[in-house]
């Protein structure tokens, strides 16, 4: 083991959104900052490379957001998707600071998508990063360079030296050798443990082998484990996570956003037994998509099939992989290796139950089924127009919710409920404080930026000896 050059003020583990918000904030507060990133420069930033937008409360139109999205409404949305499983104080903190974070991002040169063309196409609730997450990460890193933040790539943090609740050093591996970097404070922002199949299997059983991981293969949760082993309080349930139904043909890791399928509301979804198992039309897809990952995870082989007919063409975002097409349901069943008779019966039963209505994808229309279990509450139209198309689905895990409990200063809460003096956490590793279950688009980034900045400020104060407490 070799000692890294000298003491640092602050070490940040990770180089994604939460990590860089922390690093930049700490640096601007006067601390010297070292960032340890396990990936290469080209793949830096973890899951943040794949993000699209940032959810933000605002009381008046901002130049990148239209209308009004009050804190109350944001909280209602959060409570609805989590079913109340959230730390309300921390949730209020995240929501309350979201608008200031938007200004902070804009002030630091992060670009958001302007309205395109003459029609106002800005969202009311989410500000879209121009160029997406990788562009955001690029901007952060250029800024970090300008600020004199040291970023070490291909350094995998493998352990934390924590001595009676006080952080001393990070142990990391570089070029096959183990090194040690001492610092006065640490911000852990190294992601969840979704890429750690062993840990996932502990929580889910063999079903975990059929999960696809939407982001980086580096999020193995080593730092999370290190913190928990050192006495940090855990929060959340190991089976809770942000999971989305994605195309089963997606790569095992790092497929990102584009493997999602948005055709679900416009057809039916069947499992390997060729039977439906949930209401495909319960709500607008942006409100339901985050539920389907877990629904598919509960089915045989963690597999399901979204089946649509020719009428649905063009109603959803283009799929990455081609549809599996057939001229008849029976032919489709053969291609999908499903029992043809059962599938035909399922489709026939569905078609017979569909009530006439006015189909409107932009509204919660009156096209529904009657006397069918499970029902399809909206956008139900008979599947009768060939060619029929199917997309195989698998659960795609974005990130896990089991994390470390934090205080409202982003301090990791240790044994006995004591917030650590110099250990901070931000991003996926603590998102479970706010997200006990469920998900709403863009909130991961909100949590990351809010707590990243808080953690960075706290770490700088701790490192520079500016804290009042003993």
């Amino acid at each position, binding site marked *: 083991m070799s000692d890294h050059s000298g003491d640092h003020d602050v070490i940040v583990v990770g180089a994604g959104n939460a990590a860089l918000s922390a690093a930049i904030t700490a640096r601007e507060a006067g601390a010297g900052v070292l960032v340890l990133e396990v990936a*290469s420069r*080209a*793949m830096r930033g973890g*899951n943040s*490379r*794949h*993000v*699209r*937008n940032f959810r933000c409360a605002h009381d008046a139109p901002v130049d990148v957001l239209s209308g009004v999205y009050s804190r109350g409404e944001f909280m209602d949305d959060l409570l609805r998707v989590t079913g109340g499983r959230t730390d309300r104080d921390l949730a209020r903190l995240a929501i309350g600071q979201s608008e200031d974070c938007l200004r902070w991002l804009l002030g630091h040169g992060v*670009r958001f*998508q*302007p309205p*395109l*063309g*003459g*029609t106002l*196409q*800005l*969202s009311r609730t*989410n500000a*879209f*990063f*121009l*160029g*997406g*997450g*990788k*562009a955001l990460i*690029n901007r952060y890193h*250029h800024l970090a360079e300008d600020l004199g933040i040291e970023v070490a790539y291909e350094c995998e943090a493998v352990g934390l030296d924590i001595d009676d609740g006080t952080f001393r050093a990070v142990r990391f591996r570089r070029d096959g050798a183990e090194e040690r970097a001492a610092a006065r404070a640490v911000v852990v922002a190294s992601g969840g443990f979704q890429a750690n199949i062993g840990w996932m299997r502990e929580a889910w059983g063999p079903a975990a082998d059929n999960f696809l991981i*939407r*982001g980086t293969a580096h999020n193995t949760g080593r730092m999370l484990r290190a913190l928990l082993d050192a006495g940090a309080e855990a929060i959340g349930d190991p089976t809770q996570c942000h999971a*989305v139904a994605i195309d089963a043909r997606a*790569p095992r890791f*790092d497929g*990102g*956003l*584009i493997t*999602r399928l*948005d055709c679900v509301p416009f057809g039916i979804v069947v499992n390997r037994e060729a039977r439906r198992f949930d209401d495909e039309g319960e709500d*607008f*897809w*942006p409100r339901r*998509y985050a539920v389907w990952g877990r629904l598919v995870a509960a089915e045989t082989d963690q597999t399901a099939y979204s089946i649509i007919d020719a009428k649905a063409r*063009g109603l*959803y*975002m*283009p*799929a*990455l992989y081609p549809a599996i097409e057939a001229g008849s349901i029976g032919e489709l069943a053969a291609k999908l290796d499903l029992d043809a008779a059962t599938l035909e019966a399922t489709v026939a039963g569905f078609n017979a139950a569909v009530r006439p209505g006015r189909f409107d*994808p*932009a509204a919660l229309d009156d096209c529904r089924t009657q006397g069918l279990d499970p029902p399809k509450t909206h956008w139900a139209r008979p599947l009768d127009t060939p060619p029929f198309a199917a997309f195989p689905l698998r659960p795609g895990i*974005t990130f896990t919710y089991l994390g470390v409990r934090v205080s409202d200063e982003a301090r990791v809460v240790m044994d006995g409920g004591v917030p650590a003096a110099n250990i901070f956490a931000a991003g996926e590793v603590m998102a479970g404080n706010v997200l006990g279950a469920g*998900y*709403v*688009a*863009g909130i*991961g980034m909100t949590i990351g930026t809010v707590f990243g900045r808080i953690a960075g400020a706290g770490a700088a104060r701790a490192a520079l000896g500016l804290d009042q407490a003993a």
Partner: protein
Amino acid sequence: MGICNACRYCEGYCPVFPAMERRLEFSLSDLTFLANLCHQCQACYTACQYAPPHEFAVNVPRSFAELRRRSWVDHAWPRALAPLLERAGLWAALASAASLALILIGTALMVDGEVLFAAHAGPGAFYAVIPHQVMVALFGGVFVYVILALWLGARGFWRAIGADAAGPVTVGDWLTAIRDAATLRHLGGGGDGCPYPGERPANRRRVFHHLTFYGFASCFAATVAGTVYHYGLGLEAPYGFASAPVILGTLGGVGLIVGPAGLLWLRAGADPEPLDPGARSMDTAFAVLLVLTSITGLALLAARETPAMGLLLAVHLGIVLALFLTLPHGRFVHGIYRLVALVMNAREARAEMSAGSGEPAGTAGLYITER
């Protein structure tokens, strides 16, 4: 394109992505249009989470650049000379050599050594070395050829991208396209500039290109001014230092040295991954010819009253001839094809807005889903 169409994070960078989103399938015609609409700013490359080394290895700028070059070859006129585009560097060098030889030898044959190497002054000084009629005939003829070649190429391209079939183009569409081209709006990256040659956005490329293009335009205007002076005002070259031809030519010449040299300098420091390696020689050839044209032109201006004038005149005219001969089969054509693509884009975008389509190209709508 399937990957881009499923992702769409880049749609705010330039018109290529909204144009792509207006389509569900991509024929060669569509791809050729998109490839020429692309300005190689590379913002989408630096922002792409699927760019190499990711396994999807998406490299939009390079894919488009290669397709672009192929489309220029496909539409070059005369068809027999089309392969020259691919080896534009070599072609430019050969054409230069041949033109220089032609002019020098021709000049030497027409006048004796005394006239060629003597100092000439006053109106008509140039024409003592090379008669005005010879210049007009030679360069006029080449000019007509160039215009014809460019026009025929552009027209073939216009049809190939489906612009014929897609409905009428208005003056407004042309003006939009011309404005976008004249300001190089799409190298602005929304204000920060384009990330070339490094990852950080900068406006250097745009500035060097403006110097090149406006330098060229200014030199061309100088020639036009000279023509007006000669036929309209009855004044023969060389003109005074404060005259329109000289001012325009000097400003243009300076721009046309700094601009292309700057662009070559930027390219030297650029990551080759998003670039088309096959375009390298044509880019270098064109830049070098432009710089040589300017250097010889400015040298001629400086030395026009000395005995060196005759030789410099012949050399300058030789280079200019080479430049014009290679214009339809070299880098120059990018401007024509891109302008045509911009016109088609302006028309498409206008048609989409007035159709008031329910789901405009843009993802902040019904299908907003997050990771």
